[in-house]
């Protein structure tokens, strides 16, 4: 390797290490730092709501302190859904039908199928806009719930 390039590579490695230390340290010191390993779903689903794991959601399900909103289409909802879930479209009409949730002290967990979790994110954002403060998106969607063996309802 030419001396210029060798020197450039050595200096470059030093600068990358210094930058990594600075980047990680500042992120660690921040109150709203980002995790080092990104959650792929957090990128796919654009939402201001937080994500909730299936295990945490199931705990709330057992306590009866959460409402589950299914943002999929009615045909898919009719086939199977999380037990007790309501089918709410991410639309003005859909959100209006559950506007009472804004005044209720209850957690709202939105979900769709994993492939189309974006819909759940849209619904969650609309609920946040009307004043619901405890809105979450179910991590992994209905598939994550189902794969964990948690209660489902099948058919009409």
């Amino acid at each position, binding site marked *: 390797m030419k001396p*210029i*390039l060798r*020197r*450039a*590579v*050595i*200096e*470059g490695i*030093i*600068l*990358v290490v*210094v*930058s*990594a230390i*600075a*980047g*990680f340290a*500042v*992120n660690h010191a921040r109150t*709203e*730092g*980002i*995790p*080092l*390993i*990104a*959650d*792929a779903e957090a*990128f796919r689903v*654009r939402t201001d709501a937080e994500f909730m794991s299936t295990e945490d959601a199931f705990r709330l399900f057992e306590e009866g302190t959460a409402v589950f909103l299914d943002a999929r289409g009615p045909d898919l909802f009719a086939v199977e859904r999380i037990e007790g879930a309501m089918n709410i479209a991410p639309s003005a009409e859909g959100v209006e039908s559950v506007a009472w949730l804004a005044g209720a002290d209850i957690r709202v967990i939105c979900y769709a199928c994993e492939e189309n979790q974006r819909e759940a994110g849209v619904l969650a954002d609309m609920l946040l806009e009307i004043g619901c403060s405890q809105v979450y998106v179910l991590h992994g969607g209905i598939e994550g719930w189902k794969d964990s063996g948690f209660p489902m309802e099948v058919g009409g």
Partner: protein
Amino acid sequence: MRLLKLVISNKYVIFAIRLTLGFVFIYAAIDKIAQPGAFAENIYNYRMLPHWAINVMALVMPWLELICGVLIIAGVFLRGSAFLIGLMLGVFIIAISAALVRGLDISCGCFTMEGGHGVAVDLLIRDVLMFAGAAIVLFLGTSALSLRRGAD
């Protein structure tokens, strides 16, 4: 050709290139450092990196831009900073080209995280020109007009 070589090896021309690259990279770093989450989303939009690498990139790259920008102006670690700026520009050129080929309608994420410039050919030309500038500094840069004497 001889005239071109004479021009690009002139210490004032090289200093002007260093200033341009330095200020562009410092400016580019500020919003990314302030909003790493938004920058991570911009990286994700290019669909080039595995998801586990996106946040690491979003945290390290802006600091690399800032540090390299400052050092290339100061003339300290001149070779290393020019090399890394060239490397980053190479990555940007590949990413923008791939986005254009795939027809992705996304914000470039170059300077501002909210509603920036969409990926387009003019960005590609800008990055190629800056890449050439980084190469000139890397191979022809000297300690002239640097804080550190004997930097070359």
